[in-house]
């Protein structure tokens, strides 16, 4: 399946894109998405462990299972306020 991933701040800057399409096996997990992102954008490797992944606008652990219509986003450490 193809999952659309929103990118923000330094993640957007590294990938040079506001969102990217990632090809994943059906029922892939957030952890597998991380690996696929790093494979696609090696520049993300050093920061990926600091990036949270949100699925449907909720912080999600690596074992959460994705579907093709999941709204997925990479959330680098936030700095609002």
């Amino acid at each position, binding site marked *: 399946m193809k999952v659309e991933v*929103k990118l*923000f*701040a*330094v993640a957007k*800057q590294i990938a040079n894109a506001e969102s990217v399409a990632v090809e994943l096996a059906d029922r892939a997990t957030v952890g597998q998405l991380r690996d696929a992102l790093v494979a696609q954008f090696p520049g993300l490797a050093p*920061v990926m462990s*600091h990036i949270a992944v*949100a699925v449907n*606008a*909720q*912080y999600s652990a690596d074992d959460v299972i994705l579907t093709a219509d999941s*709204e997925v*986003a990479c*959330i*680098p*450490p*936030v*700095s*609002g*306020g």
Partner: protein
Amino acid sequence: MIELTNDPIDPTSLLQQVASHQAGAVVLFLGTTREFTGSRQTESLDYECYPEMAEKKLNELECEARDRWSIVDCAIVHRLGQLGLGEASVAIAVSSAHRKNAFQAGQWLIDTLKEVVPIWKKENWADGTTDWVHPGLTNEE
């Protein structure tokens, strides 16, 4: 009441929103743009957010503050886009019958906002360089 806006924040309007005859105390917090971070000089800041999730998280924060403290009203506004020095990036107003709750809720709201709400700032330094700020990853604030 929560709001994400590209316009300058008007603290007076926030104070009016939380004003009430039931309130004996109002605490307003403003986060403002500092010129110096250590020895580095800031010229402006850019704020961006993940809008759907930022709104959801801000609403969750407001609900949790109302659950945890006896407060009368609460308003949170975060500014987006480019800000000059001295401008407010965030404003939080809390009213309560007694002041302790307004102080505690206000402080918890800004502390937690800075931890969980997907908003990011980019420093536009006076030397022409720029940096996304990512606590724990890049420049600490």
